């Protein structure tokens, strides 16, 4: 199987202006999302943000109030779930307890009238792929959670669907197992070339797995992009805070001579962009973009600097992590490499970063409220 050939197996998905209301409550609010053939797309967001609803709409378990949905270029609105030929993996495994592993995996093939020899061959291939071939004669109750989920995955891919949906498939498993299965899922995605849509509220998991991530918040998509894009260039404060560690600083903004500056904790700092009129600015900084210097040393022109005191120092092996409390009480998180100068709690330091890393975002209270 060549890469280009396997890629053709995946279907494109097009969700346009999808809205889902339950009574007066809007679970999905005008969501549009295009997923490319063979792409690994993750829907990431806090609890209740509409991820499962989106997945259920694609799977055919839930109807849209309004909007369009097509898979592989054809509209599938109104097509019942059992005719959609889409694989689904659930958080709760949903294996049939009265069937052995082999029977479970054979189930979709039996429904499609595939004859016995071919069926057995494909069941074995699917179980091989998830490394569960030795368990074909066991019942689901005789398997661990991770093993059950691997069987569920085999059952969802055995009929070669062009699209596989997964709703927090690893949510019920412990961290070690989860990390291992993430790599397994990634490998299977690569081998199959099927389009994967994966739901999680774990941003690390999303970064490990995805080609692109759609960040959901309160029934809307805040931003779609690669992990790097979301981390380096968040479109909203919510995205910036949801992905990775960050420090946020607030202050009064003023624009003069094409330069926007901010007064934070009594000190002036310069921003690299400016906001649309009227929006309250907030600065979002990544811990590894910040550096520390002993107090009151002069800084380079291209740098911003704020004075504070170390309030926590943590040795991480690969480096150190510091909390710096600024004069206005706000707290910054800094990651320093081992070769950088080390500090102790109470030390007065200057917190520094390049002006080009100092992007203003529009302030948004929702970003704090909805964090899990």
């Amino acid at each position, binding site marked *: 199987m060549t890469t280009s050939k396997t890629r053709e197996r995946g279907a494109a998905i097009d969700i346009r202006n999808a809205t889902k209301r339950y009574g007066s409550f809007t679970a999905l609010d005008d969501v549009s999302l295009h997923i490319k053939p063979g792409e690994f797309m993750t829907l990431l967001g806090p609890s209740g943000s509409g991820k499962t609803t989106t997945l259920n709409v694609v*799977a*055919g*378990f839930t109807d849209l109030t309004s909007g369009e949905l097509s898979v592989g270029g054809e509209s599938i609105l109104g097509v*019942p*779930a*059992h*005719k*959609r*030929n*889409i*694989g*689904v993996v*659930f958080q*709760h495994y*949903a294996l*049939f*307890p*009265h069937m052995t592993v082999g029977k479970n995996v054979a*189930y*979709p093939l039996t*429904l*499609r009238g595939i004859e016995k020899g071919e069926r057995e061959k494909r069941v074995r291939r699917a179980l091989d792929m998830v490394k569960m071939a030795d368990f074909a004669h066991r*019942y689901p*109750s005789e398997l661990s959670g991770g093993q059950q989920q691997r069987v569920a995955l085999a*059952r*969802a891919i055995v*009929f070669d669907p062009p699209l596989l949906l997964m709703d927090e498939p690893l949510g019920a498993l412990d961290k070690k197992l989860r990390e291992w299965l993430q790599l397994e899922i990634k490998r299977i995605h690569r081998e199959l070339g099927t389009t994967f849509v994966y739901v999680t509220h774990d941003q690390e998991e999303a970064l490990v797995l995805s080609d692109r991530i759609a960040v959901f918040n309160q029934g809307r998509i805040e931003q779609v992009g690669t992990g790097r894009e979301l981390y380096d260039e968040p479109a909203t404060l919510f995205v910036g805070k949801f992905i990775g560690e960050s420090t946020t600083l607030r202050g009064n903004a003023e624009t003069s001579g094409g330069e926007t500056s901010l007064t934070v904790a009594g000190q002036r700092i310069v921003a690299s962009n400016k906001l649309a009129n009227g929006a309250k600015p907030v600065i979002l900084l990544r811990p590894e973009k910040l550096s520390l210097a002993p107090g009151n040393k002069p800084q380079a022109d291209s740098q911003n600097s704020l004075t504070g005191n170390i309030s926590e120092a943590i040795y991480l092996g690969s480096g150190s992590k510091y909390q710096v409390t600024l004069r206005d009480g706000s707290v910054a998180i800094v990651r320093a490499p081992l070769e950088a100068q080390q500090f102790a709690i109470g030390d007065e330091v200057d917190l520094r970063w390049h002006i080009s890393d100092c992007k203003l975002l529009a302030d948004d209270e929702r970003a704090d409220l909805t964090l899990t």
Partner: protein
Amino acid sequence: MKPFRIILGLFCLLVAIWLVLPTLVIIPMSFNEKKSLAFPPSGFTWHWYENFFTNPDWSSSFFNSLRVAAIVAVTATIVGTLAALGLSRMKHAGAGILRAILITPMVVPGVVLAIGIYAVYLNYQLVGTTLGFVIAHTMLAVPFVLIAVSASLEVFDVRLETAAASLGANRLTTFRTITLPLILPGILSGLLFAFVTSFDEIIVALFITSPYLKTLPVQIYTSITRDADPTVTAVGTIIFLATSLIITGGLIIGSQRRR
């Protein structure tokens, strides 16, 4: 601690004896040589068993009961299972009320029901007919099926049906291959309850019976009030052994298919 446990054990034994003794008493009585129901029995004879199998009064009533109970088991199981499925899928408050209504035949005093049924049956010539018995007994048996099937639906994970749909199964196939096998223990125990409910029902039967169609309980009752015929003890013993066998078999099957 120790003497307390012994006392507790003895007490449990006492209760157990109290519960099964009346049933066990009929076994020695069924071999009583004298033609009376006197206790304790004396002598030994197979005569009453012979009588049960040769006297057409007994054998025909036995087969009547068997026939009615078999039909009732099927009809009540179908009706009760469908009702349980429907109710389990109803989301609004009406479901509770509907369930309560469907269970009333179980809680309304038998005589009250019997009078009502009798009055209606007189009008429609249903007294003394198999159809009449089947309708009345199905009504009495449906609540048992409903309760048994509802209990197994309670532990049935509906999300399995969603999973089956995603794998390509339509509603009917999903029911046949997923739902039905998983609630089968409940359906089978409902079937058993329905059969037994009809088989030993007496109150309604006494009202709607006729000389041409007697069920076994009616036959037992009339024979005992007329001439204290010890054949009833033989009948009782046979039924006791048969039901014990069925229930034991059911328990064994039930414990084997549980996984």
